C-alpha cells in the first residue's frame, strides 16, 4: 500500500490566496504566519520571538513550544493585554483624545508594539474579562475602532462595573465612555449643584457605573442582565436624520434609533431596568443647531455652544 503523500508546506497566500478565517484574529494582531504545515500554521512567537508559535487551523488554538504559552484566541488577547498593559505614549493619546492618561489606563487601553496601534479592550459579562480587543486605526482616512475579526462585540468599561451601584450610564464608544467617566470622577453633584472634587469617594462616579457600547446600533440580549433593576441612562450622539440615497426616504439618526431599539429590548425582556432615561439633544431626538455626530466628549470639551 503506497504511503500517503505528505502535504507540502505552503505559505498562507499561495494555498488559497486568502487568509483563513481561523487565523484572521492572529493576523490582525501582528502574527505573521510563514507557512502552513498540514493543519498547523507557524509564526514567530510574539513573546520569545522563536519560530515555534503554532496555531491549529482546525481548532484555532495556539501554542509556543519554547515559552510554553498556549490557549485559544481569547486567551491570546488576554495574554497580549497582560504583556503590554501600561505600554505606550499615553500623553500623546491623551492629547489626541482629550482624555486624562490615568483614565485611559483605567479603561485598559494599551499600545501594541506588534501592530503599532492602540488597543481598546472589550469585556464579556461573564467574569468581566477581556474577550475582544479593538484596534484604533486609520481606515479611509478616518480613525476608527476595528474589532478583532471573528470575535463578538463586547462592552467597554465593564471591568469597572459595580453591581451595588443603582445607576448605569451607557455611552456610545469607549472615548465618550472614558471622557464621561473622567468627568464624573472629578465632580460632585450636591443637590443639583455641580462642583469639582479631588476626592474620588465623594465624586459622582462613586455612585454610578459608566459603560460604553461599540456603537449606537450595537447592543445584544446577552448584555441585558447587567441592567436589571438599574436606572439606565443612554448617552448616544446627536445624529441628524439622513436621507436614504436609494429610496429618498428620511431615516432617523443612528443615535435616537439606538435609544429606541435598546429601550424596547430592555423593556421587552425579563431583565427589566428600574427606569430608562436618555440624553435628549432636542425635539425629535437631535439638535439641528449642533453638528451631526456631536457627542458627549464634544460637550465636555466645550465644543458645544
Amino acid at each position, binding site marked *: 500500500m503506497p504511503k500517503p503523500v505528505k502535504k507540502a508546506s505552503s505559505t498562507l497566500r499561495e494555498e488559497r490566496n486568502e487568509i483563513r478565517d481561523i487565523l484572521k484574529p492572529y493576523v490582525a494582531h501582528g502574527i505573521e504566519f510563514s507557512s502552513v504545515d498540514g493543519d498547523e500554521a507557524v509564526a514567530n512567537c510574539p513573546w520569545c520571538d522563536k519560530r515555534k508559535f503554532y496555531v491549529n487551523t482546525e*481548532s484555532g488554538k495556539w501554542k509556543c513550544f519554547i515559552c510554553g504559552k498556549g*490557549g*485559544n484566541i*481569547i*486567551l491570546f488577547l488576554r495574554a497580549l493585554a497582560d504583556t503590554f498593559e501600561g505600554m505606550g505614549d499615553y500623553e500623546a493619546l491623551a492629547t489626541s483624545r482629550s482624555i486624562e492618561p490615568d483614565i485611559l489606563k483605567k479603561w485598559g487601553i494599551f499600545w501594541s508594539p506588534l501592530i503599532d496601534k492602540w488597543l481598546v479592550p472589550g469585556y*464579556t459579562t*461573564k*467574569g468581566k*474579562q477581556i474577550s475582544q480587543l479593538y484596534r484604533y486605526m486609520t481606515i479611509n482616512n478616518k480613525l476608527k475602532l476595528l474589532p478583532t475579526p471573528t470575535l463578538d462585540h463586547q462592552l467597554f468599561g465593564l471591568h469597572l462595573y459595580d453591581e451595588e451601584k443603582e445607576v448605569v450610564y451607557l455611552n456610545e464608544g469607549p472615548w465618550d465612555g472614558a471622557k464621561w467617566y473622567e*468627568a*464624573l470622577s*472629578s*465632580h460632585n*453633584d450636591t443637590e443639583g449643584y*455641580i*462642583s*469639582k472634587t479631588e476626592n474620588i469617594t465623594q465624586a459622582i462616579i462613586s455612585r454610578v457605573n459608566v459603560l460604553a457600547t461599540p456603537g449606537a446600533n450595537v447592543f445584544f440580549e446577552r448584555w441585558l442582565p447587567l441592567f436589571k433593576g438599574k436606572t439606565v*441612562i*443612554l*448617552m448616544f450622539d446627536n445624529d441628524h436624520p439622513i436621507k436614504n440615497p436609494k429610496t429618498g426616504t428620511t431615516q432617523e439618526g443612528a443615535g435616537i434609533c439606538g*435609544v*429606541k431599539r435598546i*429601550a*424596547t429590548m430592555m*423593556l*421587552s425582556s*425579563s431583565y427589566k431596568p428600574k*427606569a*430608562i*432615561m*436618555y*440624553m*435628549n*439633544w432636542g425635539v425629535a431626538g437631535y439638535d439641528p443647531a449642533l453638528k451631526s455626530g456631536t457627542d*458627549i466628549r464634544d*460637550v*465636555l*470639551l*466645550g465644543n*458645544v455652544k
Partner: protein
Amino acid sequence: MTNGIKYILDRICEVPPEFIKINNVQGGTDRVECKKCQSYKETIKAWRKALRWTDGLDVALSVMLSSIVSVKSVGDQLWVKIMGPASCGKSSLAEAISISKYVVAKSSFTGFHSGYRETNDEDEDNSLLSKLRDTTLVTKDGDTILQQPNLNQILSEARDIYDRVSRVTFKNKAGRDHHGLNLTWILCGTASLRYLDSSELGARFLDCVVMEGIDDEMEDEVLWMHANKTERNMRLISDGTMVSQYSPEELHAMQLTGGYVDFLRENAGELFDSVLMSEKYLKMCTRLGKFVAFMRARPSKMQQECAEREFAARLVGQLVRLTKCLTVVLNKHEVDDEVMARVKKVAFDTARGTSLNILREIYNNDKQEVSTQAILIGIGGEEKKVRALLRFMRDVGILSFYSVKSRGVVQKPKYRITDKLVTLYEQVTSGELVNGHTS
C-alpha cells in the same frame, strides 16, 4: 467641563412611551406577562373559570409549585413527575408555570451538557445546564424523552445533577465541572413515565397522578364544555402570538400562576422561616418514606442473587421538604391535615405499582393468607412476573410465605403480609387520602 456636565445632566429625561415598540414576534421569543399574585386561592379561583378543575389538578399544581419554591433551599431536591391521561390538563399547568422567568420549558433535549463549546479556559458555556442553574426545568411532554436514543445517558446525567454536582469530560480532553447546582425538574406525561425512573441506581422523582382512569360522567361534562369553547373560538383570528392562543379565562389563570411562581421564588426564604411542623407530621413523613421505599423496591434485572430495597433516607427528606413547600404554597404557616393529605397522595402515587396492589389485595382479605392464584386473579398481570415479584417481596420482608398442613395434606403455599408491614400500612393509611381529600 463643569458646564458641560451640567449641560448634559439638564438634558437627561425619561424615555417617552412612544419610543417603545414591543413587537409580537412569532415563535420562541414572545412571552405572556405575569400578573402579580400572592395567593394560592386566587390562582385556583381563576383556574376554576378556565378549566373543568378537579382535585387531581389542584394537587398537581400545588406539587409543581412546591418543586419550584424548593429550588434554592438546602436538602434533597424535589423532582416530580406529573402523570395523567392525555388531555387531562397537565400541559395547561405546565404552560402556565413556564411563563415565569424562574421556569425553563424544554420539550426535548439531547443532554444536559450538549451545546458546550470547545475551550479549556473560556468562560462561555453554552450547555443547557448552564442555563438551568437556580431554575426549574419543566418538560410538558415527558414521553418524548423516552424516545431519545441516548435516554440512559440523559438519566445518568440527571442523577448526577440531582446530587448537585455534575462533571463531564469530552473526547478533546476539555471538561467542565458544575458544583452547587440548584435545579428542580418537573416532568409531565402519561403513565409511560413510570418506566423512566425505575433504574437500579435509585429513583429521584416523586410521582403525582392527576387522574386515575377516566370518569365517564366527568368526561361528558368536559367534552360539552370543550365543544362549546372550540365553537366560540373558531370565530376569532389568532395573530400568531402566545396571548391569542388562549381564551381570556385561561390567559388570566396562566398569568396569575406565573405571578404566583415569581412571588414564591422571590420570597422563599422568608416564607419557609415561618413554617411550623409538629412532630406528629414529621413522624408521618418517616412512615410514608419507609412505606414508599418498600413499595417501589423491584427485583434486580442484572443480579439474580441480590434482593434489596433502597434505604428510605432520601425519600423521607423529599417528603419532609414537600410538606414544608406545600405549606408555603397553600399560604399556611403550619403543617396541617390538608397539607398532609396532599403529601400522602404523592407518597401513594409514588408507591403505586404491582407491589402496592398485591399488598392491598392481601390486606383487604382480612389480612389473611392468600394463595398465588388468588393474587393473580385479583390483580391480573403476567404470571411469571407476578410470581417473581412475590418472591422478591418475601425476600425484602413485605410478605411471608408458608404452607399449611390440613388433615395431613400440604395445602398450596400462601402469602401474607408481615406484621411490620401491616403496622406500617395501617400507620400510613389512617385517614387515607382519596382524590385529594382525607376520607
